[in-house]
């Protein structure tokens, strides 16, 4: 009898097993994110009602004394006022300078526009500590170079500037904010349809009136959202207020919290610090809510028409010379502190530039570093810190974002929310909370506690970047690979990863650079074994070893540039080849 071929035996995978596989990964991620983000917050809340001299896991007793001490103190309103003045002042000043420069670069025919753009991007790698230290060298009332020169030149009795003042803190922070604002604003200015301006001109308005009644109202929501974002960053700014604000007698919240938790003498007042931390947290959350409202309006006002248009540049005519001088002044202001640091780093002790000083120039500060085991340890720790932080954060962000963007259901949404939450948590508050959570674990005192803290903090940035990139990648690209018969892993490896790679690399780089710059977490969680470059800098500086601190800073800036620039160029090229 003829054999008839059997019908295919159905090869079936049990559905429940298939789904739980993904659900297990998702549940583990949710658990991890909860421990990372919500754990510290819970501990912060607990610590704010902790009796003085106790640690959160040692006792169950509660007290409201911290809150009454923190918010009953007549000095506290001044603390909030300082924080508001400092943050508001630097953001406003920075925004004015940045808008002017952005307009000149994006909408006028000013010469050297590309050069300014490149310089702006490069200066983002310079840590805020470099500006703070550099300006102290230039403007301190005793022997700041500019002060001394002006005193001699004008025959003054008093130094004309005092770096240790609120106004100088605002000025220095503003110059440091400009490059970031420039990047955020340039898209806004570039994409504005010039036809809207022309329409104003056709109606008979002169340029000033067009600017006042058409351009400004159109830009306002965008400017507002940049302003709110920057305010969110600046209320938690730490480095410049730490270096300048203490001597100036203008403490801000972030520095005050640090001093309470790591006092130079006496025991840490964790409970009080947590009570202040909650105040700062509430402030940051309010700012974030306002920021979200502002970006929503900005979306509604979008002047990006989507259709191609040739941006017509405003002809400056004779106005180009003042415009160029203005931009040049900004860059001199940016570079001056770096030059001061470079000069100091070449001297055995700090001296004003002079012929005698010039004869003492050497690279001994740099060569001394190779002999110092402390500094070598710091460099090694820094490498470990920045590479593990950047890599771990991006790994976690990649998986989390995939589930958040491609997944459905409450768990996926919860994951996305938890990953974003650290955005609203001021860094000093996070540092304090992590310190309190892990102080009794073997993790405390090692470099890994800083890694853990930084991963938590940068998770928000990492997931936002990957989310944005993933949303632009059509899910059909992955589905097509599956329909071709490729497994999930192959479609991730061969399709999604290569497409995301430039975004991954850029975000990785951003985290790496910021991880190296960060002083808040490194200093709050510092121990003799986990000292890194940024905390070494602070220690050297506070012990008065100015030339070594300067040399180390220069090394850090150059090192960052050497790592960042080539990778950024490569990522840009890759992104371009993808169209």
């Amino acid at each position, binding site marked *: 009898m003829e054999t008839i071929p059997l019908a295919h035996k*159905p090869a079936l995978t049990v559905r429940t097993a298939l789904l739980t596989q993904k659900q297990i990964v998702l549940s583990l991620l949710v658990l991890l994110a909860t421990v990372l983000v919500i754990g510290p917050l819970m501990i912060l809340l607990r610590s704010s009602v902790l009796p003085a001299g106790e640690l959160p896991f040692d006792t169950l007793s509660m007290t409201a004394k911290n809150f009454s001490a923190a918010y009953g103190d007549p000095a506290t309103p001044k603390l909030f006022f300082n924080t508001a003045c400092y943050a508001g002042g630097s953001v406003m000043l920075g925004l004015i300078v940045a808008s002017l420069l952005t307009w000149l670069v994006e909408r006028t025919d000013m010469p050297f526009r590309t050069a300014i753009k490149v310089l702006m991007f490069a200066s983002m790698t310079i840590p805020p500590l470099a500006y703070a230290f550099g300006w102290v060298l230039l403007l301190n009332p005793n022997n700041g170079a500019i002060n001394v020169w002006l005193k001699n030149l004008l025959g003054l009795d008093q130094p004309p500037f005092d770096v240790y003042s609120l106004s100088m803190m605002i000025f220095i922070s503003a110059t440091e904010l400009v490059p970031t604002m420039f990047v955020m604003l340039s898209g806004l200015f570039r994409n504005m349809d010039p036809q809207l301006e022309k329409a104003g001109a056709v109606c008979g308005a002169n340029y000033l009136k067009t600017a006042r009644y058409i351009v400004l109202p159109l830009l306002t929501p965008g400017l507002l959202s940049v302003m709110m974002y920057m305010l969110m960053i600046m209320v938690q700014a730490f480095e410049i207020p730490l270096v300048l604000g203490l001597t100036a007698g203008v403490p801000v919240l972030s520095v005050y919290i640090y001093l309470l938790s790591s006092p130079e003498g006496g025991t840490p007042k964790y409970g009080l610090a947590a009570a202040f931390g909650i105040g700062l947290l509430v402030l940051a959350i309010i700012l974030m809510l306002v920021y979200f409202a502002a970006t929503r309006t900005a979306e509604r006002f979008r002047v990006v028409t989507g259709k191609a248009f040739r941006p017509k540049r405003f002809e400056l005519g004779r106005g180009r010379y003042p415009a160029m001088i203005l931009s040049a002044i900004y860059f001199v202001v940016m570079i001056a502190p770096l030059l001061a640091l470079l000069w100091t780093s070449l001297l055995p002790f700090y001296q004003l530039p002079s012929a005698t000083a010039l004869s003492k120039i050497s690279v001994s500060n740099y060569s001394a570093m190779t002999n110092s085991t402390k500094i070598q340890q710091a460099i090694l720790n820094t490498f470990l810190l920045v590479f593990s932080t950047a890599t771990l954060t991006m790994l976690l962000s990649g998986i989390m974002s995939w589930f958040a963007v491609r997944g459905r259901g409450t768990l996926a949404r919860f994951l996305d929310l938890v990953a974003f939450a650290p955005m609203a948590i001021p860094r000093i508050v996070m540092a304090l909370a992590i310190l309190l959570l892990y102080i009794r674990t073997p993790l405390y005192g090692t470099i890994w506690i800083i890694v853990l803290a930084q991963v938590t903090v940068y998770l928000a940035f990492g997931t936002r970047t990957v989310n944005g990139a993933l949303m632009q990648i059509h899910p059909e690209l992955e589905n097509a690979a599956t*329909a071709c018969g490729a*497994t999930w892993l192959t479609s991730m490896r061969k399709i999604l990863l290569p497409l995301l790679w430039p975004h991954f690399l850029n975000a990785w780089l951003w985290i790496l650079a910021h991880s190296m710059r960060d002083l808040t977490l490194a200093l709050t969680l510092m121990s003799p074994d986990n000292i890194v470059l940024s905390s070494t800098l602070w220690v050297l500086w506070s012990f008065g070893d100015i030339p070594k601190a300067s040399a180390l800073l220069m090394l850090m800036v150059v090192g960052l540039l050497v790592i960042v620039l080539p990778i950024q160029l490569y990522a840009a090229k890759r992104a371009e080849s993808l169209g």
Partner: protein
Amino acid sequence: MKAKSPFRSTSPENIQPTGRALLQPAMLTVRDLEKNFVADKGSVRAVDSVTFHIPPGEFYTLLGPSGCGKTTTLQCIAGLEVPDGGEITIHNKLVFSRNTNAVLPAHRRDIAMVFQSYAIWPHMTVFENVAFPLLYGRRRVSRSAVKDRVMKALQLVQLAGLENRPAPFLSGGQQQRVALARAIVDEPKVLLLDEPLSNLDAKLREEMRFELRELVLRLHITTLYVTHDQVEALSMSDRIAVMNNGKIVQEGTPRELYLTPKDRFVADFLGKSNFLEAKVLEISAGAKRGRVQTIAGALDCMITRAVKPGDSVLLGFRPAALRLIDDGCTADSNTFRAEIDSASFAGDFLECQLRVKNQHFRALLDPYQECKSGDVITLHIPAERLAIVATL
């Protein structure tokens, strides 16, 4: 003999020689498919007990407006969505069954798919795109064979010579062809096409319509096509299923669907139709035909659903279904008189607005006959062109 197979109707051993024509084996079978989505206001049934069978080599189309569930059905078949109920069989292989609570993962199903966005991978060349299924798919071939197969596929879609071009440098039409080449390169049994022509411009769309049809016919690939474009559906398909609100409302050949829509939605969605209210008078033996009372008099029509005398129904007919009766020739049954409200000569046809009492109709008449507005004419409609499309 062997043990009983669960796939009685589709397994070769169960098909008797005499029944072969009758019980054609299905290449793709979908039975009682259901899929719900969770929306803001509770759950939405996107696919509602959808059932169809596609024999080997057939070009079958799911036609419907956006949101009717046609793409969801396609994605359930491909395995990109997990249905909530029903059964799917591809090439005698059960790939989803609610009853046994089992699914075959998407990458192990014997299908190929062309997506609406084409989903051409921008980081690869044309060659790499087309070679992907051969290198990482279900039916992998040796590296040396890959080149031959890819070249053959590119030739079939007339893209020979473009294999080294990076994907971002392709036009829309070229991307479409690459997507097609990638789908056919590993000789799939079933091809799923999700609105593949909707992103092309009108002229190219017309060309590709013909080319695509030729290609799948030549390769004898069973094709499931999803579209919202009635012209595509009518001109390409062997059979069409019109979908609305997650349900198949009518299935048939393009001719059947267009000429005698049996549902108001089909009549409306596929071209233009006239509607006429009526009361059922009698139903003939066999329940295929019946007589109804309308404002235009008593007419014979097709009975397409369960009705009984006395029921109120809605009749539908196409504008081209009417025939003008000359004074000279005698009219058989099914005639009525109408007044011409307006007539415009359009070359291929004479477009008239007709009025019967207070009801208006659109008619496309023989252009050789002279009519003008105000004339009262006699029209004939064959009973098979007039069908019940809804009960009232």
